[in-house]
C-alpha cells in the first residue's frame, strides 16, 4: 500500500470533523475524493499531510506509521501537498517557489526540468513574482513545485477551482500522465465531474466526515448519482 488510513478521526482542536475514515490507496492509483461542500474533504487532506491533528486511528505511508510525525517530516518522506487555494508564496518569484519543492521527498537537487516538462509556461515566468500570475498558472506552479522534489504521492485539493476550463482539461491530462508515465500516486479532491471522470480510477464519497460509498467513475454518468454526491 502507498497510503493507508485506518479508523482515522481528526479535526480542529476538540471539534471532530473526520469520523472513523478508513482508506487505502495503491501505488500508481488515482483516487478521487468527492462530496458536497463542507463535508470534510479538505480536512481529510490536511489530516494526511499532518496539518490537522489526528485524534485516533493511524495514517500509514509506505508501511511507515506517520501519525505522530510533524508536517515537514511527512513531506520529506514523499507526500506532496497541493492545497485548495494553491498555497503559492505570492511574494516570492516563480523560481523561488519551485526551489522550495526540493523539500518534498529526499531529492538533493531540484529537478526543475521535470516541472518544465509538464508545465512549460513556468520556464518563461521564472523571475516573475508568483502572485502576479493568473489562477491557472498558479495552479500549474503549485503542482510543478512538488514535481521538483521526489513525491511518491500527490494530494491535490480542488485543482479546478476558479480556473478556466481549457486549463482544467490540461491539468487533468497532466495528472493522468504523471500517474501512468511516472508512477505517481494521486489523491484528488474534486467537484468537477468531467475532471473526475478524466482522471480517477476510483471515487471515494465523503459525507459528514465519513466515507459513505466507493464508486467507479462511470457510475457518475447517472445524473441522479452525480447529483446526490456532488455539489452540482
Amino acid at each position, binding site marked *: 500500500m502507498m497510503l493507508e488510513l485506518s479508523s482515522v478521526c481528526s479535526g480542529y482542536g476538540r471539534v471532530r470533523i473526520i469520523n472513523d475514515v478508513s482508506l487505502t490507496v495503491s501505488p500508481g492509483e488515482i483516487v478521487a475524493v468527492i462530496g458536497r461542500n463542507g463535508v470534510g474533504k479538505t480536512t481529510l487532506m490536511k489530516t494526511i499531510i499532518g496539518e490537522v491533528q489526528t485524534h485516533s486511528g493511524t495514517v500509514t505511508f509506505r508501511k511507515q506509521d506517520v501519525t505522530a510525525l510533524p508536517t*515537514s517530516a511527512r513531506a520529506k518522506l514523499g507526500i506532496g501537498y497541493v492545497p485548495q487555494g494553491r498555497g503559492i508564496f505570492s511574494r516570492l518569484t516563480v523560481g523561488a517557489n519551485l526551489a522550495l519543492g526540493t523539500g518534498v521527498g529526499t531529492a538533493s537537487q531540484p529537478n526543475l526540468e521535470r516541472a518544465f516538462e509538464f508545465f512549460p509556461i513556468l520556464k518563461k515566468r521564472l523571475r516573475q513574482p508568483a502572485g502576479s500570475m493568473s489562477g491557472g498558472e498558479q495552479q500549474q506552479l503549485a503542482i510543478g513545485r512538488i514535481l521538483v522534489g521526489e513525491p511518491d504521492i500527490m494530494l491535490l485539493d480542488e485543482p479546478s477551482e476558479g480556473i478556466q476550463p481549457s486549463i482544467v482539461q490540461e491539468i487533468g491530462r497532466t495528472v493522468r500522465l504523471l500517474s501512468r508515465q511516472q508512477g505517481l500516486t494521486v489523491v484528488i479532491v474534486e467537484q468537477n465531474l468531467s475532471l473526475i471522470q478524466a482522471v480517477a480510477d476510483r471515487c471515494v464519497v465523503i459525507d459528514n466526515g465519513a466515507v459513505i460509498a466507493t464508486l467507479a467513475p462511470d457510475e457518475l454518468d447517472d445524473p441522479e448519482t452525480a447529483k446526490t454526491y456532488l455539489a452540482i
Partner: protein
Amino acid sequence: MDFVGQIVSYFYQYFDNAAFLILAAVGLILIYGMMGVINMAHGELMMIGAYVATLTYNAGTPVPLAIALAGCAAGAAGIIIERLIVRHFYNQLLSSLVVTWGLSLILSQGVLVLLGPSTMNMPTPLGSFSVGDFSFGVYRMVLFGVAVAMIVGIWMLFRYTAFGNRAHAAMENPRMAEALGVNTRRVYTTTFGLGSALGGIAGGMFAMTAAVSPFFGQSYTPLAFITVVIGGGANAVLGLAYAAAYLAGVQTITSNVFNQYIGYVSIMAAAFVVLLAMPSGISDFIERRRMRSMQR
C-alpha cells in the same frame, strides 16, 4: 575657519550616528521582520556580548576573536531564550514585549548580582586621524563599515541562499512551508539565534567605546526600538537602512545646530513624524506601494 575639517566632521558624525543605530537595531529588526516579535531583552544580549568581549580581551584574546566570541555567546543565549520562552509568543507583539521585557530585567539584575555594579573598560583600538583642526577616531569608521557589512550580509543571506528562501516562505505562509518540508521551528530558532549573535557582536564592538556594566543594554534599547518601529517589518533590511539613514541625518543636523541633547530628543520627534505618515513603518509603506503598482 577650517572648512574642509568641518565638512568631514559632519559626515563623520553622520556615519557614527548611523552606525550606532544600525548596530543596535540590526539583530532586533531581523527577528521582528521574520517573526513579528520584539525582543526587549536584545539590549541584554548586547550586554552579554560586551562582557564576553571585555573579559576575553582582558584575558589576552585578540580583539577580533573577542568580538566573535561575544557573538557566539549572545547567539547561544538567544537560542536558549527562543526555545524556552519566545517560541510561545510568535506573532503576539504585546505578549512578547511583556515577556521579553521581564527577561531583560532578570538578565540585567542577574548580572548585577553576579558581577557587581562596577564598570569594566576596554580601550578603543586603532587610534585617530586628523583633517585640519579636527581629529577623528578610526574605530568609529570601522563600526560604520561593520554596520554596512551586516546589512549587506543579511540581505544576501535572505536573498540568495536556500535558507533565505525557506525563511521567506515560513514568513509568508508557515503551514505551506511545512508542507514543503521546511522545518519552520528550526528556521525561527536559527533566525533568532542569528539576530542575537548580531546583537552580541554589536555589544562586543560597543564595549570599546562605552563602559560595560549590567545596565549596558539600556543605552541602546530605546534607540534600537525606535529604529525598528520606523523601519517596519515588511522588509527588515531595507527598513533598517532607511530608518538609520533618516534618523542619523536628523540627529546630526539638530545636534550641530543645537546640542547633543536636542539631537537625541529630535530622534523621537523625527520618529513621531514618520509614524504619523506611515503608521507601520517605512518598509511597510514602500512594500505596499510596490504591491499596488504591481497589481495594476
